[in-house]
């Protein structure tokens, strides 16, 4: 493997960003109005994710019924063509994917007001069309958007982001080249607060650097929250305009 310059002395990263810059973030909601009750399409850098929310609906089997709150189920489908090289196996039932699903369910369980929808099932289906690092954060963003589109009550946005640490410099919103070259932290931040719902570190990071990394991550997540908020508001305005012109 050729040695890549992850972070140049001039302060530029592989894709030309500075350390504290996000990737291109584009999102739209209500992309699949017939297939689901709420949907979103998200492009975060080269991550391309479709999220479909179906529900609250009647559970498929009786054993799933919870008389006090809704059941949240998330399934992540990482397509075989999502990476540069086509993967040989489908990723379903891989331990890594199961872990992701569990983490996502447990994150949104505390944020969605499930107690308002007893005896129902909220099914979230995610299709990862293309991935380029920091996938977990993008999944969180996609779900937040789709849940809002579905009109399901929740306390606040959850915005996800990953931050890498290159030597002593934290790099915001890493892509897959950066992710393989250094250790990174994934955060799921609740709204504009400093509360973390999700925090995952998978590689070694010096304990004394953690605080700076978290601080950068929280700032980045707040920025993403604003970007999502902007999209949602402009979408809503369009709809209101349509409704009133009728």
């Amino acid at each position, binding site marked *: 493997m050729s040695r890549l310059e992850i972070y140049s002395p001039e302060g530029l990263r592989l894709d030309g960003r500075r350390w504290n810059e996000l990737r291109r973030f584009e999102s739209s909601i209500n992309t699949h109005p017939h297939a689901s009750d709420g949907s979103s399409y998200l492009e975060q850098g080269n991550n391309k994710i479709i999220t479909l929310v179906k529900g609250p609906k009647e559970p498929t089997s009786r054993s799933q019924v919870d008389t006090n709150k809704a059941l949240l189920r998330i399934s992540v489908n990482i397509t075989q063509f999502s990476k540069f090289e086509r993967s040989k196996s489908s990723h379903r039932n891989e331990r890594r994917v*199961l872990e992701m699903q569990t983490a996502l369910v447990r994150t949104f369980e505390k944020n969605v007001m499930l107690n308002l929808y007893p005896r129902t099932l909220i099914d979230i289906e995610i299709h990862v069309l293309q991935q380029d690092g920091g996938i977990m954060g993008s999944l969180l963003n996609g779900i937040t958007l789709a849940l809002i589109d579905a009109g399901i009550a929740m306390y606040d946005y959850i915005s996800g982001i990953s931050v890498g640490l290159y030597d002593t410099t934290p790099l915001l919103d890493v892509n897959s080249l950066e992710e393989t070259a250094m250790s990174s932290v994934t955060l799921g931040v609740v709204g504009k607060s400093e*509360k973390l719902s999700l925090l995952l570190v998978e*590689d070694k990071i*010096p304990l004394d650097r953690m605080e700076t990394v978290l*601080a950068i991550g929280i700032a980045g997540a707040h920025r993403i929250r604003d970007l999502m908020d902007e999209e949602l508001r402009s979408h809503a305005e369009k709809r209101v305009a349509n409704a009133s012109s009728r």
Partner: protein
Amino acid sequence: MAKEIEISNSESKFLLEALRQNYRLDGRSFSQFRDVKIAFGDEYGDVTIEMGKTKVHCRISCQITQPYEDRPFEGLFLISTENSPMAGPQFENGNNTNEDEVLIARIIEKAVRRSGALDIEGLCIVAGSKCWAVRADVHFLNCDGGFIDASCIAVMAGLLHFRKPDITVHGEQVIMHPVDEREPVPLGILHVPICVTFSFFNPMDTEENIKGDTNAEITIIDATLKEELLRDGVLTVTLNKNREVVQVSKAGGLPMDALSLMECCRKAYAITEEITDKITYVLKKDEKRRNKFADLLTSENARETS
């Protein structure tokens, strides 16, 4: 489907109220780790860990196999953490797709294997054709919470204790010397990761947790089974003595303030140091026990070679 342990409203109410008043059921303080008992078996790499009523056994074994084609210079290392009904009636045989069990397996995998605690390049014998395959089998013997922490200690203590048979290489030919013929050699351990699990409880309502800034959430270390069943959130931090964060996993659950999570990491470091020292201490003691006749065998009367 395996049934679950039923917990009554009285219990959950009582536990939370007790925590609010600064008590834990078993009399520990909030940031007190249970006393860890490490016992070695007769063979190398046979460890039993006891933390309160939690009991975990780990056995390390090795054999010579072929390395993966895409990694000819690396040996194989596998950690198997299979739950069996031996640990408690809530576990089922052969069904390891339960959410919690997947999380346990993944965290130990990340903490020990992915972090490179074992030097797998040192397991290579003949590049591309022969290497050692080291296997750690973790058995849960009794469940009273803290499986992740206990199994991580068990695997690491096992790896440190284990000796693989000595070998001689002649070109492609490998001779493995039985343990009674030649002193076996220890594995290359690069660092000792230790997992510390924190459990979070929310004494207020959900709104206060998400919107408020009182940060009144209660954090306790090393929960017992009952506390695990009732907790609102969990964080597992893995650190080593070099002040490196090896792995952090807070997979959802109660949202927590970033600063209090940092505080947890710092508390975990103190515990990591303590447990690492404990492992080194028991290893030394075991070494002494095994070599108690070493003095007799030294060649004090041997002729001087100079």
